[in-house]
């Protein structure tokens, strides 16, 4: 009766294939798993999308 409405937000996690550093950001249309997105700022390794998932946020 008093439960809050649950809302979901989708996130994309990017990971460097060389130094394994990870960053999490909001999902953008066009993202898909294992897509090469950019070059790592610190080690110049390939950054790929490692995970895309939905998380519940309480509205």
């Amino acid at each position, binding site marked *: 009766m008093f439960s809050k409405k649950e809302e979901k937000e989708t996130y994309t996690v990017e990971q460097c294939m060389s130094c394994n550093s990870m960053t999490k950001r909001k999902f953008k249309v066009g993202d898909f798993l294992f897509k090469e997105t950019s070059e790592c700022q610190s080690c110049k390794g390939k950054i790929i999308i490692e995970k895309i998932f*939905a*998380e519940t946020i309480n509205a």
Partner: protein
Amino acid sequence: MDFANFDIDQIFGLGDDTNPLLWLIWIIPIVIFMFYGQRIQLQITSGDIKKNIEKLKQLKEESRKELIDYIKKELKPKADPTQKIDLFISYFTIMPVDMDPNGIIPKVRHIMRSREEYTRSQVKAIFSDIDALDVTKVQNLLEVATALQLLYKIVNHLFLTAKKQNNYPLILPLQMILPFIMEEADALKGAIPALKHGQPLGDGIGPMVVGKMMIGTEKQKIAFETVWSQIEHEKRKLYLLKAEGPLATVGRPGDAVEHIVSQHKPDVIIMIDAAVKLEGEDSATVTQGFGAAIGGIGTDRFQIEEIATKNNIPIFAIVIKQSVKEAITTMTKEIADKAEETRSQLYEMITEHTKPGQSILVVGVGNTLGVSQ
């Protein structure tokens, strides 16, 4: 009036001279419930069912509207697609006669593939230029809208029949099954945003596990919307197979396994798939077992079991448990976090059940939307 003189026995008819009015007050409801009890129950139950039918109708209409809006805004059709979409949504499939079940699988496969191919060609015909990903997205959205329309039609039919016949027992099975139907309808509606945006579904955990293992390898097409590649792991050859991502497709794993087995004769087949959890089980639990882990109508499972049996190849399974809603909506964090653990379990399984020099076919089963390789 003399209030000091009233007699309780007389008022309640407890004395020798029974009050006929009170007698009627007792007997009339009994007579009414004897003759009209079921109708009264039918009216009470109807209220709740009607609310759910209204909700189903709303879900069906919303899914249709969202599909049409998505096509108009995102995919730029040649002409207004509304009429064609309405036609596709009302398509039905007549399953083959099963009085003599011998040889029914190829017939079911033929009917399902004909339907799939026809829908694909019709979807392509709506647009002058559309890529493979968008075609599969529209096909999946059409399936959602069709399923919701079918659920609404069936529930409404059962309800109206019971009402027409004034038959209470007829409404009981509907009342019992309705919560499950509503759960499925909610799950289908929840799948729409993920399909539109191309986000991986919970069902995509199998392709996600295998897809990462395929990064940097040479991928080849082996069956319709299905790819495979080879890697080495601890002196064993691994044949990796999954549907072609990031399309919204499950591919044709049956055909692909048949092809790989006949060409390369793997020693073991390991299938990774999402499985519906039982009530009380935790989501995203990874478990191992035996047999072909693959859902759907059953034709691919039959094909894989048949070829494995003929060639005496053991089939092992790793499944990631989840609810129906989790399987067809955007992958949850809990499920995505289990990809690495599933991969470790797969490597352990390979080293435990095979020797160096042997080959293993690893199949990532499920809808590979948003999961490349």
